[in-house]
Each structure stands twice: as structure tokens, then as C-alpha cells.
């Protein structure tokens, strides 16, 4: 579903990813583990087309997307929940969640269906829906960012350190939601990054480790 082959990425002249190869099969749940600064976020941003790949190939659903404009990822069914939530503060939670679906021009009925599926997985978002995103707590924001990624992620969802900064209770709740996601939407591939593998063990089938921009172990 998602494939990186020997991808090298430079930021400001510094090589940040070195020949990174990584595979996420359809419906697969894969973890990408690495310390601070190892290159997890950069890997996801490269997949999203937000950074150009200097070398190597990048494919989504078998389609070469190295030169595809970044914004077309959403149309391919890839949802992305970045590290810092990155919600739009002046919008309501509902507007944040609906935005990618509206941008894609999905029919009303399809949007409603997806929203309902998403609300069943994350019922706490129902109450939050009318609130302004700027007023959410960090943990609530993470939930909303996950909901938003689910809205377009019909093929794959990329989650960047979703557990970072969550209180233990909320982290458990988040993990539970991811497990339910697995059974509710079995075809959706998930790539999760984290700095320690502990929390992800029950959620993923296999793990890549990244160190200083290189895949160290699979």
C-alpha cells in the first residue's frame, strides 16, 4: 500500500533520511520507532509529498508518487495526523473534521456515512463537534486530528507520535480506538511512529526502527 524504496531526503543541505526503504501492506499496521531526531516525522512528510525525495522511489497503492503534487494524497485515500495536531484554530471541530471530505468534493451522503463511522470509533468527538478547535486541550486535539485523518484515510492513515503528551488514561483510550479501527476498517493500512515500542506492541504487526535517518532493523 505504502512503499518507500531507498528514499533519501535532504533538508537545508543536510541529509536527514538515507536510503530509507519501508513497506506497509494493504490493511497492514506498521510501527516506525526511533529516538528524537531519528527521522520519523521526515519519513511521514516525505510520504505525504511535503518534502521532496532526493533519490529513491515512493509509491502509494502501487502508484509512483514522487512527483505527484502533495495535495493529491488525500484523493488517493491517505489521511495524515501530524505530530502537533495542526488543527485550524478558528474553525469548529466539526469544520476541521469535514474539511478534507469537502475539499475532495465527496457527495453529502458519503460524507455523512464517513462521519458516522468515525463518530462510532471516537464517540467523544460528537460532543466536541461544535467547539472551536482553538479551545481544545492537547489530548482532545489529538483525538480530533485522528478523526480528521480517518475521514480521508480510506486506504492508509499516517499517525506521527499519537501518544506523545497523552495522559495515561487518554493514551489507553486512544489505543483502544486504534484497535477498534482495525476491526471496523480492516482495509485501512496504518503507519504509526513512536519513540518507544511499548505502547504499540499490541497494535501493530511489525516494526521498523529508524536511527539517524537510516532503517536499522525491520
Amino acid at each position, binding site marked *: 500500500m505504502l512503499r518507500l524504496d531507498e528514499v533519501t531526503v535532504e533538508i537545508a543541505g543536510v541529509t536527514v533520511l538515507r536510503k530509507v526503504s519501508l513497506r506497509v501492506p494493504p490493511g497492514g499496521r506498521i510501527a516506525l520507532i526511533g529516538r528524537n531526531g531519528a527521522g520519523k516525522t521526515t519519513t511521514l512528510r516525505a510520504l*505525504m*509529498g*511535503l518534502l521532496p525525495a532526493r533519490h529513491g522511489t515512493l509509491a502509494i497503492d502501487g502508484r509512483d508518487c514522487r512527483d505527484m*503534487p*502533495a*495535495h*493529491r*494524497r*488525500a*484523493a488517493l485515500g491517505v489521511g*495524515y495526523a*501530524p505530530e*502537533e*495536531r*495542526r*488543527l*485550524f*484554530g*478558528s*474553525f469548529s471541530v466539526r*469544520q476541521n473534521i469535514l*474539511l*478534507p471530505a*469537502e*475539499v*475532495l468534493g465527496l457527495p453529502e451522503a458519503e460524507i455523512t456515512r464517513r462521519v458516522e463511522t468515525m463518530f462510532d470509533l471516537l464517540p467523544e468527538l460528537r460532543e466536541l463537534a461544535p467547539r472551536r*478547535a*482553538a479551545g*481544545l486541550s492537547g489530548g482532545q*486535539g489529538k483525538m480530533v486530528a485522528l478523526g*480528521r485523518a480517518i475521514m*480521508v484515510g480510506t486506504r492508509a492513515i499516517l499517525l506521527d507520535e499519537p501518544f506523545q503528551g497523552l495522559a495515561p488514561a487518554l493514551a489507553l483510550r486512544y489505543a483502544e480506538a486504534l484497535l477498534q479501527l482495525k476491526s471496523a476498517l480492516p482495509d485501512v493500512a496504518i503507519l504509526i511512529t513512536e519513540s518507544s515500542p511499548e505502547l504499540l506492541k499490541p497494535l501493530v504487526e511489525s516494526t521498523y526502527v529508524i536511527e539517524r535517518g537510516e532503517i536499522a532493523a525491520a
Partner: protein
Amino acid sequence: MSWFSDNGLLLGLATLDGLSYAAAIFMVAVGLNLIFGVLRVLNIAHGSFYAIGGYSAASLGLMFAARGLPAWAAFAALAIAAAIVGVLLGPPIARLLRRTQHQEPVLQLLVTFGLFMILEDLQKLIWGVQPIVFDRPLKLLGNVDVPFAGDLIPFTRYQLFVLPGIAIVTLVALAWTLRRTLFGRMLVAVTVDREAAISQGIDADRITMVTFTIGTALAALGGALSSATASLVPGVGAQTIVLSFAVVATAGLGQVEGAAITALLIGLGRSTAIYFAPELEVVIPYLIMVGVLLIRPQGLFGVIETRRI
């Protein structure tokens, strides 16, 4: 009280002048503001759009008149000229400036300044340096006596109704677009967080292009509308961009309603100076700006982003 009755006429004129001037400045500043939001480049050449809009409207209007077209064509000329300037200059310049998006701000400023010089020369090449007058729209609508502090002030209907009217329509239309339409939400999203917007499937380059074109056309319309009230001379673009900067900085970035109120403040301040302390005309807008920024560095209506959400 006696000062008021002594100066009622001047005060009234200053108020009315300030209103119509604020309307024109608002049209330029609001576009500058939207464009800065999506492009993150402070476009000095934005003032040229105002000047070229004015000159184009005058040329078109004079041409219409020479061909014996009916009176309403003088008004149509203003709108048509603005649209042409927006569509012709907007996209290519947007494309050019987009290339500087990831460069140092100093370099961006130099590029837009260079662009401004080129457009200024182009404008002198086409329209020369002699003042050009096209006051047909003003004459057509005639004057009206405005009661003010016991006096009757003769003022043009055009400056009293048309200029502020169009500014208000622009304000309402923009505010509505930003809040109620998908395009508006995409524009806000790109302004707030371009990368996050792109991840939501938004074609940020397209939004930037469209916004730039709208902003360009609005500046050109501001120039076109003002071309009827003052003769066109070289340098009008520079004067406008500096005032618009003052409005945008005073209002705070990303503010449509705020830009309107600030344009009013600066427009009224400037015209009051013209009537009562002409030597202060040039500095008043910046005194207002500096005064506001000293008290509120984020601008009158800007909000401080305390945390990234």
C-alpha cells in the same frame, strides 16, 4: 462648542473626504492582507496595481466617452479595467513571487521592490508623466448638500455613496466568503498552516493564485474608483502602498473587518490633517500606526497565537 461652529465646514469636509479616501485605501489594504496571508510575501508592487488600475480605468473611460457610449459606460469602465488588471497581472506575478516563498524576507522585499520599479516605469511608458483626469463618473452623479454641524456641505454623490458603498459591499462579500464558503475555509486554512492545508487535499498553489488575482483586482478597483476623484500622476502607487502597509500593520494580519475600521481611522486622520494641519498630512497615518503598535504589537485586531494547536 465655538470651535466646532467655527470649523464645522472644514470638519465636515474632512470627514467626508476621509470616508471616501478610507474606502479606496481599504480596497488596497484588504487585498494586500489576504495575499500576505497565503503567500507570506509582503508585496510592495501591490501599490502598482492601484496605480495601473486607475490609469486603465481612465483610459478605458475616456475611450468609451470618445466613442459616444452612454453615461453608465463610464462606471462600467471602472469595473472592467479592474478585472482586466487583476486577470492580466495577478497570475504571472503570483507565479513569480511564489518562487521567492522560501527565500529570505529581505530577498522577497527586494524582488517585490524591483517589480514595483518595473511596473512604475511601464506605467510611465504607457501613460506618460502628465496628470490624467477622468472625472466623468464624478460629474455624472453631481453634488449633494450634506448637513453637518449646522452647515450644509456640498459634496459629490460619487464620493459620498459610490466609493464607500463599493467598499462596504467588498467588505461584506469577503467576510461572507471567508466564513461561509468552502473556498473561504480553504483560504483561511492555507493562511494558518499551509502544510496542514495541503495534507487535507487543498491545492494551496491554486488557492494562492486565485487569492492573489482577487487581491490584485481589488487594488485595481480601488485605483479605478479613485481615478475619478483625483488626477493620476506618477508616484500614486508608492503613496498607496505605504498607506496600505500602515493599515495592515495597524489592523493586524488576517483581518478583513479590522482592515476596514483601521482604513477608516487612518483615512479620517489623514484628511483631518489635510484641513487643519497640512504639514502633518504625510506623517499622521504613521503616527497612528506607531501609536497603536506601541500599545498592541499584534495590531488593533490581531490575536496572539499563544500555542500551536
